[in-house]
């Protein structure tokens, strides 16, 4: 009897089938055409960065005798540089290295930031006071200045550059995660879980953390874009990845003298920096919507 009454009055979605959260997320993501294009472009770039240098007959530091400063041709689509290295393989290898640094930075900052933010937000009290003070300390430090100083001593390598960047960038994510934990801790479903007899560890890991995945993934995605820009800046200033190892930043630095005579040599690596940043930002914005389980846009 009760079931019949319910069926008549308060069911508006009898045709709803059970779909996994992942499937629902994908369906919402698909509604953002720009982001789908951005995802495709990013995947293509990653394939090009890793497969390109591997397929290419040249290596990034190979000097081809007698072929300096060539324009684009069939055998050298991006041309060659002033000492006769194939520019395409240099740009792609540089992209690979910049991308590696960006991804490592995004993973490291997300990990450190999440752990510190989660502990601060969940436990509150003096733990929060200490960790927030530490976070704010790192936030007010002028990052670029510290990088300039510290990079002289420890910079230069691919992974040391990534570590330095992560070391300075984690507070942003820590603040976000701390805010999320404070927000979710006060939610009624957490109260309901406590009222059902759940322990603090269960509440933290099973009830709060899964709710923070969405925003954390969004921030990690955006961090990739930000890291590409900072890495390029640092390498451009000669304090990031050191030549002959190419990165998008130090390739621009290499050829900046040719900006008048042959602007493509500067514009090409610059274009890749812009493309990656643009795509990660579009991707992040679409994920923000798609990863919100209560968003109705997929229906």
């Amino acid at each position, binding site marked *: 009897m009760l079931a019949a009454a319910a069926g008549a009055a308060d069911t508006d979605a009898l045709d709803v089938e059970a779909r996994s959260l992942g499937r629902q997320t994908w369906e919402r993501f698909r509604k953002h055409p720009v982001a789908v294009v951005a995802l495709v472009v990013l995947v293509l770039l990653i394939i090009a960065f890793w497969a390109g240098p591997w397929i290419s007959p040249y290596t990034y530091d190979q000097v081809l005798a007698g072929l300096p400063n060539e324009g684009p041709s069939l055998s050298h689509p991006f041309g060659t540089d002033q000492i006769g290295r194939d520019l395409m393989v240099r740009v792609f290898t540089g992209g690979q290295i910049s991308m590696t640094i960006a991804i490592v930075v995004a993973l490291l900052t997300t990990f450190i930031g999440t752990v510190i933010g989660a502990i601060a937000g969940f436990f509150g009290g003096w733990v929060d006071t200490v960790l927030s003070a530490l976070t704010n300390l790192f936030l007010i430090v002028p990052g670029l200045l510290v990088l300039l100083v510290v990079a002289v001593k420890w910079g230069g390598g691919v992974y040391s550059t990534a570590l330095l960047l992560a070391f300075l960038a984690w507070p942003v994510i820590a603040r976000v995660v701390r805010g999320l934990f404070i927000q979710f801790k006060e939610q009624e479903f957490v109260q*309901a879980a406590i009222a059902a007899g759940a322990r603090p560890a269960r509440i933290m890991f099973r009830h709060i953390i899964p709710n923070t995945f969405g925003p954390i993934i969004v921030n990690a995605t955006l961090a990739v874009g930000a890291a590409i820009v900072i890495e390029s800046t640092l390498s451009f200033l000669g304090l990031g990845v050191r030549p002959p190892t190419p990165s998008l930043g130090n390739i621009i630095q290499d050829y900046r003298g040719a900006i008048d005579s042959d602007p493509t040599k500067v514009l090409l690596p610059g274009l890749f920096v812009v493309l990656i940043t643009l795509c990660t930002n579009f991707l992040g914005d679409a994920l923000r919507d798609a990863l919100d389980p209560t968003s109705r846009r997929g229906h």
Partner: protein
Amino acid sequence: MTEPLLSVRDLSVTFRSDDGDVTAVRGMSFDVMPGEVLAVVGESGSGKSVTSLAIMGLLPRSARISGSAMFDGKELIGADIKDLRRIRGKDIAMIFQDPMTALNPVFTVGNQIVEAITLHNDITEKAAWERATDLLFQVGIPDPKRRIRLYPHEYSGGMRQRAMIAMAMANGPKLLIADEPTTALDVTIQAQVLQVIRKAQALTGAAMMLITHDLGVVAGLADRVNVMYAGAVFESGSIDDIFYRTGNPYTLGLLGSIPILTSRSADKLTPIPGSPPNLLRLPAGCPFRPRCVFATDICHDAEPDLFPVNGDGHSSRCYHIDKVVEARAGSTA
């Protein structure tokens, strides 16, 4: 006489605020007998929710709680957290006001009911899922086998509250605390959900504390009623005592605020004048005095105790019970 299931004595809850201490509950005492439905009625800020949160141990650490709440022979106030965890969700289960926010958005309804079951029972996943499906069926969710795999946002408001009730029923609690269980729902759904709550209470044989500001809900469900005002019980009695032999001016005011469809348009609603007291600065004497039509000088001097009104277990915090009873008799005659 049977022992009460829950016996609250002199419960007080104080919160510290920037403007001074706020005493949200002032010396509450009441009993809940096994299997009975006790309605706790009052305006916002009367302390009804805080009372239930104090019993469950869900108040923030900054709250200062004194008094006693004996549940089934165990003291709940200041109890060890491990003992409380064993009781929460098993012996005392809670139905929250807004099922949208009380269910975790990233898990299916099934996951959450199964969790409620496995937290207190040593049974296999499979058995827990079967039990959860059965519970959803009992609360009137059509096609529970399929619906159990849906997420809360894929449920309608009424179905979500049904699912919350299923969760609360999961471990056969002795006491259900329902905090405004229909307030967040459409009026068309409220009656259905009340039916489900009544059925859940009958199936489990649990006693219930029904917290509400809606006297209509009370009339349909409760055995006894506590009317709260300014953090204290103002009138306590059976449902007939409260509705027909009203002995407190505040209760009388609440009754006058209910619209009656059958009444002629000439009978206007009579709202209670003024607004609920500021808990930071309670008026001297009876806290209801500034809004009370019966008030005299004596009400200014001291807050009245709960005096017995004729009838078993009917009491009222008022110096002028006789006049109130008379007025009520006159209006219903």
